[in-house]
């Protein structure tokens, strides 16, 4: 149970601990992660397209993202004419916060988890659904019909992909018998006979996650050709940055959750000699997460964009039934064994 278990005794202490951990996670991951990811994205996409990514700023362009961020901060916050001021400003915050809240549940290393909620996985789904409201409010508040349309489409997309996501989470819960992420990681690797349904669940989870994060091939909402920049087309730098933060944050969080649920979290194939269990866990966890991220980016720059009805159709008519059947099969297998 590690450090968390001891401190749990006193209620107040618990809260303090949670706050400290939260601070650490946010600063490191919330900011560092997306920044790095933006750069990584541009580097990988360039590499795929046989071109060199940004390499002027800093060694090999590493500082490119930092430079962009600084640029965004200077820019003036433009407020669209007769836009709904309150909503316009609240929306980006909501999206960013939602993305960040995901991390509360993810166990980086044995014992390293912000709050081991026993409804962990469910909490993740719940929080991820908050972003939809933010997008909608943003789309509506910018008083621009393109942004409104974009918002509606992305909301529809995210809502419809929540279901398959939820099912795959339920599947994992049924197999491991618990919702808490930590216990799920401990329960892995799953027994062999369950592998087929787990693999299917994993695939479904991946597709749903990319859709949740509005990434290509599901990035229709802000498809450049059609809807200019989607729901955040009106947003000036600062709020735009928050949206970007939210987007990449949720991408990173989903892949982290993927690793915890399917790739065994912090459990590596072999013990890294010389370091404590925590560092070992951390290393494996990060390796796996970034592998997944790389995979997602790789997918983004290879597959063409899906039309909106194909998009929704895929979710409702393919993923949902597959995951339902998969859940059923898994349930049976669990019961039978």
């Amino acid at each position, binding site marked *: 149970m590690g450090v968390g278990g001891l401190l749990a005794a006193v*209620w*107040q202490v618990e809260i303090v601990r949670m706050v400290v951990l939260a601070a650490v996670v946010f600063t490191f991951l919330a900011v560092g992660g997306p920044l790095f990811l933006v750069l990584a994205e541009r580097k990988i996409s360039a590499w795929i397209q046989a071109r060199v990514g940004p390499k002027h700023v800093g060694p090999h362009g590493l500082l490119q993202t930092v430079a962009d961020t600084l640029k965004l901060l200077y820019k003036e916050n433009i407020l669209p004419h007769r836009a709904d001021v*309150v909503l316009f400003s609240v929306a980006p915050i909501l999206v960013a916060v939602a993305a960040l809240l995901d991390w509360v549940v993810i166990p980086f290393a044995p014992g390293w988890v912000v709050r081991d909620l026993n409804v962990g996985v*469910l909490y993740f*789904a*719940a*929080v991820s659904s*908050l972003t939809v409201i933010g997008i*909608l409010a943003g789309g*509506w508040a910018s008083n621009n019909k393109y942004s409104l349309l974009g918002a509606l489409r992305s909301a529809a997309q995210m809502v419809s992909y929540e279901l398959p996501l939820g099912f795959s989470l339920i599947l994992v819960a049924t197999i491991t018998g618990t919702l808490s992420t930590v216990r799920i990681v401990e329960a892995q690797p799953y027994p062999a006979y369950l592998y087929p349904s787990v693999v299917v669940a994993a695939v479904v989870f991946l597709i749903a996650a990319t859709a949740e994060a509005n990434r290509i091939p599901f990035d229709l909402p802000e498809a450049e050709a059609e809807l200019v920049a989607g729901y955040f087309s009106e947003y000036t730098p600062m709020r735009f940055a928050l949206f970007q933060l939210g987007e990449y944050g949720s991408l990173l969080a989903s892949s982290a959750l993927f690793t915890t649920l399917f790739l065994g979290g912090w459990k590596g194939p072999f013990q890294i000699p010389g370091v404590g269990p925590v560092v070992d866990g951390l290393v494996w966890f990060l390796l796996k997460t970034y592998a997944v991220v790389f995979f997602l980016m790789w997918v983004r720059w290879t597959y063409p964009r899906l039309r909106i009805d194909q998009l929704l159709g895929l979710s409702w008519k393919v993923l949902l039934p597959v995951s339902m059947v998969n859940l059923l099969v898994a349930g049976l297998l669990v019961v039978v064994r």
Partner: protein
Amino acid sequence: MNAEALAFYALAAMVVVGGGLVVQSRNLVHAAVSLVPTLLGVAGLYVLLHAEFVTAIQLLIYVGAITVLILFVILLTEGATGLRVPQRNEQVPLALVVSGALVLLLWAVLLRVPWGPPAGTLPPYNPGAVGRSLLMPYVLAFEVTSLVILACLVGAIVIARREE
């Protein structure tokens, strides 16, 4: 004033203010969006009441689904644009009286009812208990609810579908 009381009052304030906004605000979208803090407040209350599972469900369904749905419908039915029409109908004062009276009466009744001794410490919370009780003693409720869901699902699709 320990942390819990503090949290309770904060959340209570959040809920009441949010509720007031929902009820009062002239702009429908505002009302819809202000629904979110109310619900989050309620979710917080559940956390205080050690009902993590219900909190998660509250978040997932209420905030994630229903509010989104309401927003959707508002946008679809240009509720938002029809701002010119006064949002409140003619029976406001009467409504105020009635709801106020009701609240007061509820207070009086609820407070007077002897609810029995407050429970001591709580056993460690375990969502499995909820699941188990849903499927053991209250399986009938569970099944009926599933049936209702199915009915609403089909019903909603049929009603809302645009006739070709």
